[in-house]
């Protein structure tokens, strides 16, 4: 049979963001694939060197639309470590609340995209309808649905009042019910299983070799979670479980992400019940003393890594960002070997790519 090369991207209904993925087919079977990034490369690291630390807090949020708050959290954490600032507890709790809300929103978005890619449009509509609840909460708290600009160096710039807390309480209960329904319907849906079971398997060995992080790694049995292993913000004061599965296929990743969503809702409920009183931020000096710092956080897609070096001036000397999507992208050609063309959509959706994060 002859070989055809199907270009998936840069523009394709399958992808949310541009990515060039050339898949070589023989009949319907994939024999090879090549990946090319860089369509949304904006040079964030170079830009960061020409802006002050305060301006960078604005820039860093725009690395990605879906995980914007976690990026700014990690950045602010690094600079606060350099400044040896201690952020008040209330500020840390509000930071965590938005991180978890963002995790919920990201996983619901991903679920819709996966459902759409395998043809289950109804689940796509339901997941994105439930996502509106989260987006409304985030808009009430911060003023923006997707880009919150809540973090400042030294804490957060918004506070939660009684109205916010009661809205959160009500919405989280509703969300809990809906996500439970979604989990039940997915676990029992035969057509969903048929399209995702044994597709895109990654073994624990592959995960370790490629240094994969996040739900993709946890679905193959690797038990890592920065929130538990190296707690940042105030995660050591909250209790939560880290779901773990061993099958390593797209189905396991789906179930795992929904379980994580349920845990995130649980964390949000704990946060609003245990919110400490006090200020939400401290003032931060403009000049950061010389030093280097490494900071990690758990984004919805895995471990996000920041390295900041300061030389004593107002601008950082080096800002290095490593996003979790880079670790999962490298496994894609291996996952697609000997799969069918129809499974490419399930696999690509299953790893939850965020190309804007990967390209920076």
């Amino acid at each position, binding site marked *: 049979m002859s070989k*055809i*090369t*199907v*270009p998936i991207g840069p523009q*394709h*209904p*399958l992808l949310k963001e541009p990515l060039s993925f050339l898949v070589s087919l023989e009949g*319907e079977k994939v024999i090879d694939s090549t990946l090319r990034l860089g369509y949304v490369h904006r040079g964030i690291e170079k830009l960061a060197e020409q802006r002050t630390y305060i301006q960078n807090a604005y820039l860093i949020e725009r690395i990605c639309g879906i995980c914007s708050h976690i990026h700014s959290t990690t950045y602010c954490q690094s600079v606060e470590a350099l400044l040896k600032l201690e952020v008040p507890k209330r500020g840390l709790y509000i930071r965590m609340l938005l991180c978890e809300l963002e995790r919920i929103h990201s996983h619901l978005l991903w679920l819709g995209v996966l*459902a*759409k*890619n*395998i*043809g*289950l*449009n*109804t689940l796509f*509509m*339901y997941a994105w*309808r439930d996502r509106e609840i989260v987006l409304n909460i985030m808009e009430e708290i911060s003023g923006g649905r997707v880009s919150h600009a809540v973090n400042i160096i030294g804490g957060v710039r918004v506070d939660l009042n009684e109205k916010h807390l009661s809205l959160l309480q009500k919405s989280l209960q509703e969300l809990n019910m809906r996500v439970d329904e979604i989990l039940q319907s997915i676990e029992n*849906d035969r*057509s*969903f299983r*048929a*399209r995702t079971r044994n597709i895109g398997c990654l073994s624990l060995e592959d995960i370790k070799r490629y240094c994969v992080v996040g739900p993709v790694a946890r679905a193959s049995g690797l038990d890592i979670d920065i929130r538990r292993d190296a707690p940042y913000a105030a995660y050591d004061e909250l209790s939560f479980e880290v779901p773990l599965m061993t099958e390593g296929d797209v189905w396991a990743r789906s179930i795992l992400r929904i379980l994580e969503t349920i845990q995130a809702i649980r964390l949000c409920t704990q946060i609003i019940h245990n919110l400490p009183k006090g200020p939400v931020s401290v003032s931060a000096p403009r000049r950061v003393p010389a030093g280097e710092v490494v900071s990690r956080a758990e984004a919805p897609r895995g471990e996000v890594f920041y390295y900041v070096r300061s030389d004593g001036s107002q601008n950082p000397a080096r800002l290095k960002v490593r996003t979790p999507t880079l670790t999962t992208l490298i496994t894609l050609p291996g996952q697609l070997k000997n799969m*069918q*063309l*129809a*499974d*490419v*959509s399930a696999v690509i959706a299953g790893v939850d790519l965020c190309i804007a994060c990967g390209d920076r």
Partner: protein
Amino acid sequence: MNQFYLFFRIFIFPGFLFLLVIALFLHWLDRKLIARFQGRVGPPWYQPVADLVKLFAKEDILPSGTNLFFAALLPLTSFASVLTASFYLPIAIQSAPSFQGDFIVLMFLLSIPSLLYFLAGWITGGVYSVIGGNRALLQYFSYEVLFLLAMSGTAIASGSWSLADIRLAQIKEGPYIFPQIAGFLLSLAGLIGKLKREPYDIPKAKSEVIAGALTEFSGKKLALWYLTIHLQTMVGLSFLIHCYFSGFWQMNTISGFFIFLLLLIILQGVLSAISAIYARLRIDQLIHLNWHIFIPIALLHNIFILLI
């Protein structure tokens, strides 16, 4: 006067315009129902008309190297074949006289658009069109057979290959839906496969092959392809109703027409529900389902009817 009457019957009622109105109504119903199942509002009643008007106004471009004559001939031929098929099918109003063997002719005319869909993919070239066309052909070989086999149960039971005789047999013995419920369900599955609806819409799966064989079409040609699909749905459903539910209504009466319309709406609702509930199946799962499960049941079903 006779010529004007003929013109009226062919183009207005119960001809072209009438069929088109019903087909677009069914299409609107489909979209509205799926939207409601998904928690959305759905389009207003004039949406299908608006879509067609918009398509007719769009520029018609094709990739260079496409044979323009055939690229225009294919949608016209498929549309023409479906319209011809609809003349032979009585939609509660007898349009063309029935003859021995018109069951098979109707089957044949209804299957031409699927074949031409595959050819359309080949003519326009491009990776997505070719893959979509190939998948459509594979699906065509499987689900046309299923449709024919399952529907033949009614012809076998009535002892004739003429639509009028099938109807007369049902008026005498009662509608075939009750003794042949399995055949009806299999025909429905075959129809979904023929129409390339979810969950069998792998030839035009948006997330993989953009729009399948029709990726490169635009403007009037695309409008004709869409009209073909709408009419094919309506004719297919009417065919099902005629073969399984005849006897519930009187021919050539207003009440008969409304009962027929009600049955059409119910069946369209069933199709929309199935589309909303299931995920798209892969091509190999589709073929496996067809040849390992549906066809054997259809064969057994027909043998059972022959013996009884």
